[in-house]
């Protein structure tokens, strides 16, 4: 009988309880605050916003606000008579008109009294008079900056007949009764009611108060959460600006359900992995590493040229993996200043992403930068300084402990120190036995500084707005040496509209320069494990000391020497966008979006001879690399919108053309004569060159039709045809489509009556298909290529065959389903969104493993395996307290994704049997099940597949005679975040916890990979729990200096994985707005002092190292505390 051992590795009880307690506490606080009612204000002008409430209640409210008495017959108005009203700062008369619109009552106002009477049925004559009295109402609808609002819905309340405002914000309603109430609504604004009169002039809308009505940026447009169909989360500048991060992706952690953010390392400039709703593809790279499915990144309508892949080609401290287009190196988002970002939309389901077709198959992240606003020209400046320290520093053995531990290992191995060679055991026989260095502190103990400055200038007239901002940022590394990631950004945009608003232009230009100045090796943190009594690594003049009393010290001195090998990455990042809009006729608009994004990176890496062990006859070498990423996109669109009776119909017809180019050239110079010449490739003794070219073209045509009926029922269908150059002839095109529906059930009378405390309720569902083409170009041909490093054969340049031939691969297909419910309670103060989704990806396009006898290890083909991602997402926002002095808001989200391999024909017989099991996640780990350390022998023991115990398990899965079981699942079980923000007068306090429950490779895996405790290397103090004598119960096996198989097997056993759940205080921020008086004195319009902290605190059972990082030697995550000042001139 097999047991499921993975269950043993979950969150241990205490942490579980803590999380539970924490959640309960939050819930109680939330409820308490909801009971509070905001204090009402009194006055002559009336403001009421109520839906479906008894008329009498409205009268009470008007009475309360105005002081007017109401007179009406007791039985004239029953409780069943209900009405809607939405007025702001209007007279009693207007309020009454609105409340009584469509109802059979009339009113009279005299003195301070309102008399309500039953309206008699109008006679025929009266009706005719009415007709003749009918008027035409026209007005211009504008926003708070007097900018016209096009496409706003205008309706007669009595009849529900409606029109849409034109491009200049104008509307005309014909045949309106003189006392009709007209309702004007638009996404992002509070609905406004006005009383009909001829020419109204300007109608000013005010920004929405409810979160539901805030504007969300979606694919090619905006929408409100109220009427939206897609699973979209929006993160605003408010959520980002109080996080002291350089890379905006780091700021997204914990802010949106279903969004998993994983830092590749804590080093400044390092890449950050992003995934939405789990891993869809099985695709295996030839290196064995799985490609990580990432969403499509778009900045201001322009796809980021490098997406979220490495921009570096060379190895460095900042970017561990120097493969272009891979993950884990330098982030392309270093070129984007978080201070320039207005909002980030995360598009998750097919309804939201369908418009991006195959490009958006793994979700879409839309980044919108700040735009100028008309009005007074504003200058804003922000300056801060931050202090960074390494988090999760762990304790290493000190010299006493280390020497004892080493002697014990030698004793276990029966090695007699007296006759041993001193150079074999230098720590025991040669080094100072009392010297004690904390090498963690030596390499990473430094506090580093970040400097950050940002200035923006914005303003404009009614028709033209602009914004220019510039930022400077310098993040230093907390390792010995003067290393930093610095950045200079320029952000600008210009918007123009003709007087009739018929023609609009939006132009954006962003340029940034990023310089990463670090050392040439990613493995410097390995130096942490230098034996504590190791002699000095460098002389006073900082040259490496390569030997100590005849012992070759290079094994550990090399780490320090690597810091003397300079590396510089210069990245130029340009993002240009031009959006032209032209209203052909009132209901039809043509848009043309043009985008160009270019990332150019230029690297040099130098390895001077003096930084290498002279024993190995080194020569100086240098690498130079130039990489270019370019994207051009052209997107013409026709947008048609008109109202049909009580509904609004819209159609979008468009096309996308995208051209992507990435290429790189790497020059390797070796055998330099003098290391002072390392900056020059021409001075190299020998040069090799490698280059790569990845052209990609994509085009798609799409149509989207939507119909919203009565603001209650929403329908949308979309279809598209995509073509990709990544596929061979006949396989290039694919057709995909989706349909979604929404029902705002809270608008139904029945529901309004039954559950009045629910202010908003919406059910949505979507289903659709999409394909992906994520693969390298040209693979449908058999290709030959010259090798980079191999010289000519007798003057002939050899051409090597590159791949197995399979011309027939095509799109893999994703079938995606999403259902969601949105609920608003107590006038939308408490909003809940729940999503349930299921994505299934079939026809997996994979580098399918084949035996090497075919000539290659894999062939690119579609494979009949299906991967499913299924999950739940919950998010809550709550305005707990909202008074003029004090407010408290809470946001909470949690999501759980379950990845599962649904089918995999022939899995057991394939090489994938070692990786996957049908019915389990594609992120499981297979290996041996650890029993523990045998108290008798001190060796690790494992369970065989038949349940027996062994120290020598068999490689392979049980059906192949091996002992492999599933030992871990690296998918997070759930992820989420809890944020609170408080403001009291001029103070603002906010903090955000982010949490994950997951399994993770633990420190033992690092310790036992390639080495084992007992060797000439230091270890965390945790290894002291080792087996020493017969009968000892311990976690660490008998110390030994020799290679041992059980120790080797341990690295792939269940013992190497443990609970990596954590709660992290991701962000905490305090700010203070300086008093107006003081501001005036210093000549600014307002000023804010703040202190922001990042990664301040971690609660975890993960023993050594950081649960967010993959290994003990990863560069630690930084704890940052920033102090700053923001000024508005």
């Amino acid at each position, binding site marked *: 009988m097999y047991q499921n051992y993975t269950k043993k590795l979950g969150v241990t009880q205490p942490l579980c309880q803590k999380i539970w307690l924490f959640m309960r506490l939050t819930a109680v606080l939330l409820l308490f605050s909801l009971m509070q009612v905001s204090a009402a204000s009194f006055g002559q002008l009336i403001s009421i916003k109520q839906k479906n409430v008894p008329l009498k209640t409205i009268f009470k409210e008007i009475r309360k606000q105005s002081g007017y008495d109401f007179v009406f017959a007791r039985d004239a108005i029953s409780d069943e008579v209900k009405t809607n009203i939405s007025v702001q700062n209007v007279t009693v008369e207007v309020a009454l008109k609105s409340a009584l619109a469509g109802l059979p009552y009339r009113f009279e106002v005299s003195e301070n009294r309102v008399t309500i009477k039953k309206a008699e049925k109008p006679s025929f004559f009266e009706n005719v008079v009415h007709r003749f009295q009918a008027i035409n109402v026209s007005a211009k609808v504008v926003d708070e900056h007097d900018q016209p609002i096009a496409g706003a819905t205008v309706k007669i309340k009595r009849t529900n007949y409606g029109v849409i405002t034109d491009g200049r914000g104008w509307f005309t309603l014909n045949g309106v009764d003189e006392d009709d109430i007209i309702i004007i609504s638009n996404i992002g604004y509070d609905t406004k009611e006005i009383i009909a009169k001829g020419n109204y002039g300007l109608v000013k809308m005010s920004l929405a108060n409810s979160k539901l009505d805030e504007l969300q940026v979606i694919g090619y447009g905006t929408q409100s959460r109220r009427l939206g169909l897609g699973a979209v989360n929006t993160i605003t500048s408010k959520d980002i600006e109080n996080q002291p991060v350089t890379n905006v992706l780091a700021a997204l952690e914990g802010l949106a359900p279903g969004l998993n953010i994983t830092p590749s390392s804590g080093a400044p400039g390092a890449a950050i992995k992003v995934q939405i709703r789990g891993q869809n593809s099985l695709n295996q790279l030839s290196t064995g590493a799985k490609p990580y499915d990432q969403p499509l990144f778009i900045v201001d309508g322009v796809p980021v040229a490098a997406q979220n892949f490495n921009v570096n080609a060379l190895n460095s401290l900042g970017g561990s993996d120097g493969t272009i287009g891979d993950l884990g190196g330098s982030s392309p988002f270093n070129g984007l200043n978080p201070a320039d970002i207005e909002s980030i939309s995360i598009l998750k389901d097919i309804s939201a992403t369908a418009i991006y077709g195959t490009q958006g198959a793994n979700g879409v992240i839309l980044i919108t930068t700040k735009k100028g606003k008309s009005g007074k020209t504003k200058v804003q400046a922000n300056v801060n300084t931050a202090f960074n320290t390494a988090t999760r520093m762990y304790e290493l053995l000190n010299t006493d402990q280390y020497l004892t531990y080493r002697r014990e290992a030698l004793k276990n191995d029966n090695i007699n120190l007296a006759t041993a060679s001193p150079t074999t055991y230098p720590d025991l026989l040669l080094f100072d036995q009392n010297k004690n260095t904390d090498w963690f502190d030596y390499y990473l103990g430094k506090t580093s500084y970040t400097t950050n400055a940002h200035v923006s200038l914005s303003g404009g007239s009614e028709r033209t707005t602009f914004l220019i901002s510039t930022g400077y940022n310098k993040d230093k590394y907390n390792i010995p040496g003067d290393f930093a990631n610095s950045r200079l950004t320029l952000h600008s945009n210009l918007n123009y509209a003709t007087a009739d608003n018929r023609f609009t232009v939006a132009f954006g230009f962003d340029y940034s320069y990023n310089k990463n100045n670090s050392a040439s090796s990613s493995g410097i943190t390995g130096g942490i494990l230098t034996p504590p009594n190791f002699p000095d690594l460098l002389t006073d003049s900082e040259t490496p000391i390569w030997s100590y009393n005849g012992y070759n010290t290079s094994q550990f001195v090399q780490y320090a020497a690597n810091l003397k090998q300079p590396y510089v990455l210069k990245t130029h990042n340009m993002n240009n966008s031009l959006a032209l809009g032209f209203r052909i006729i009132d209901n039809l608009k043509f848009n043309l979006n043009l985008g160009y994004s270019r990332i150019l990176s230029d690297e040099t890496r130098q390895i001077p001879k003096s930084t290498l062990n002279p024993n190995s006859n080194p020569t100086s070498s240098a690498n130079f690399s130039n990489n270019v990423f370019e994207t051009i996109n052209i997107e013409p669109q026709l947008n048609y919108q008109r109202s049909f009776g009580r509904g609004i119909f819209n159609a979008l017809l468009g096309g996308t053309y995208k051209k992507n180019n990435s290429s790189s050239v790497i020059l390797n110079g070796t055998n330099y004569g003098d290391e002072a010449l390392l900056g020059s490739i021409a001075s190299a003794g020998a040069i090799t060159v490698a280059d790569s070219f990845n052209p990609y073209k994509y085009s798609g045509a799409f149509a989207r039709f939507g119909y919203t009926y009565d603001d209650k029922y929403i329908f949308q269908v979309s279809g598209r045809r995509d073509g990709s150059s990544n596929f061979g002839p006949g396989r290039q095109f694919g057709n995909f489509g989706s349909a979604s529906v929404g029902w705002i059930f809270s608008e139904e009378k029945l529901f309004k009556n039954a559950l009045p405390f629910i202010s908003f309720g919406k059910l949505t569902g979507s289903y659709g298909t999409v394909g992906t083409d994520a693969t390298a170009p040209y693979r449908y041909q058999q290709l030959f*290529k010259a090798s980079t490093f191999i010289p000519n054969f007798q003057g002939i340049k050899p051409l090597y*065959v590159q791949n197995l031939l399979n011309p027939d691969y095509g799109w893999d297909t994703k079938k995606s389903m999403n259902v969601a419910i949105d609920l608003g309670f107590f006038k939308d103060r408490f909003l809940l969104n729940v999503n349930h989704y299921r994505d299934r990806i079939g026809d997996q396009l994979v580098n399918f493993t084949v035996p090497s006898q075919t000539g290659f290890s894999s062939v690119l083909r579609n494979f009949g395996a299906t991967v499913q991602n299924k999950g739940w997402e919950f998010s809550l926002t709550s305005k707990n307290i909202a008074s003029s002095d004090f407010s408290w808001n809470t946001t909470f989200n949690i999501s759980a994704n379950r990845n599962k391999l649904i089918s995999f024909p022939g899995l057991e017989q394939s090489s994938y049997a070692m990786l996957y099991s049908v019915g389990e996640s594609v992120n499981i780990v297979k290996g041996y099940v650890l029993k523990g350390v045998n108290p008798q022998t001190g060796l690790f023991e494992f369970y065989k597949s038949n349940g027996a115990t062994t120290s020598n398990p068999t490689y392979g899965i049980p059906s192949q005679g091996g002992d492999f079981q599933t030992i871990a699942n690296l998918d997070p079980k759930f992820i989420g975040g809890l944020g609170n923000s408080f403001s009291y007068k001029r103070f603002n306090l906010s903090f955000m916890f982010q949490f994950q429950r997951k399994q993770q490779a633990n420190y033992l895996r690092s310790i036992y990979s390639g080495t084992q405790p007992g060797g000439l290397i230091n270890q965390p103090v945790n290894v002291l729990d080792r087996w020493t004598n017969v009968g000892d119960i311990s976690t660490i096996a008998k110390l030994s200096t020799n*290679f041992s198989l059980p120790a080797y097997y341990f690295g792939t056993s269940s013992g190497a994985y443990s609970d990596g759940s954590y709660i992290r205080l991701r962000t905490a921020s305090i700010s203070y707005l300086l008093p107006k008086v003081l501001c005036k004195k210093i000549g600014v319009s307002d000023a804010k002092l703040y202190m922001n902290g990042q990664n301040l605190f971690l609660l975890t059972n993960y023993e050594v190292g950081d649960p967010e990082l993959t290994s003990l030697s990863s560069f630690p995550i930084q704890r940052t505390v920033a102090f700053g000042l923001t000024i508005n001139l």
Partner: protein
Amino acid sequence: MKFIHLYKKLFVLAVISIAITTVSCKKLIEIPSNPSNQLSTARIYSDSTNIMSAVAAVYSNYGAAISGPQFGSGSITIYTGLTGDELIPGASTFVGNSFYTNQILPDNSTVRSMWSQAYANIFQMNICIEGITNTTAISAGLKSRLIAELKVSRAFYYFNMINIWGEVPIITSTDYNVTQVLPRSPVAEVYKLIVSDLIDAQQNLRPAYPSIGHARPNIYTAQALLSKVYLYLGEYQNAITAANSVITNGGFSLVQNLNNVFLDGSAEAIWQLPANSTSSQTIEGATFIPFSATSLPNYVITPKLLAAFETGDLRKTIWLNSSTVNVGGVLTPYYYPYKYQKTVAGQAPIEGYSLLRLAEVYLIRAEAMAQSDKLAEARADLNKIRLRANLGEVSSSVKEVVLNAISHERQIEMFCELGNRWFDLKRSNTINAVLSGKTGWIPSAALFPIPVAERQANPALTQNPGY
């Protein structure tokens, strides 16, 4: 009115631009027919220069110019030297230990690299044979010559593979649908392919080398390899015939100065690849020669091999070298192979990578003669080699004695050279007797394991016993 006119125009423009994106999709996603640094098969085989480049890759794939051991260069020498009785891991214990102790795990990455490197180059040979067979870009004469060259290479690879792994899949196609499920073929079947490839090659190659040096096979290269194959198969008369042709007609001669045997352009070389890496010379030179005269070599000659050299053998003084290492205060000499004497990077290589040389052909003929009871001829060939090493002649007329002397001579002359010793021990069935005293030796270690990953990818592959 003018404005309306403009608007109309813009409307037309809008419709056209959307129409373009939708209708002519195919044009929009056209990319150049090949990436700037790669060529497709069709283009390769329609151009003579490209064909020569594709064939050149076969020779480069041997790895003589790559700075680490490859299947075609270094790996066979080093790893069979460890599994047999020639080498002990010195500084390179990490990779070497499991070979030396004959405890190779089925997932050993070095063994897997050797396997995949071998088949990768066989693929390059097969695709060249396929492409050249169908091309019209080159003359019929050049076609048959190139195919013949490729078949010599294919025979060389399969010959080494069966002597390392025993049965191996015979791959002669580039279609992965066919090749991915092929099981291991009996050794005899593989030999059949080797012999037929070499006979084909013999018929289509000329006495002159096709290019400078002795890098690409000529007729004698095919015959030399054929004689070796026949010897292994016990077809002694065929071995003698092939060797006779090489010795009599080939124009090769033994290089008398042992320091010069492995120099590029050596008169003894029948098949010698240029070692033109920028970072090292030959793999053997780079691997065996330590950084300094006082550092531990990566691999050390076994005491047994050291003792096997007769007194006065020049090969001991010239083809071995030693470094003196301070071990716990005692200065100890460590011997290492020194046939290849150059390690220094950055200068034009003066040594070449020897795949077949005349001395071996003499020993092949000597053995075949002895087996055919022509002891005088056998002794004559054997003594040519002994004479060069400054050793006395063998004069025995007893077949066993002569055979033993030849076997011993092979051990010394061919030590640490392409697995000859390891292969000899196996084909003579003396491996268990010879290695029985070695720690960890088990008879099943005579064959390397079939890599686990390969068996996972192709369940039709059986494993060798003992793994």
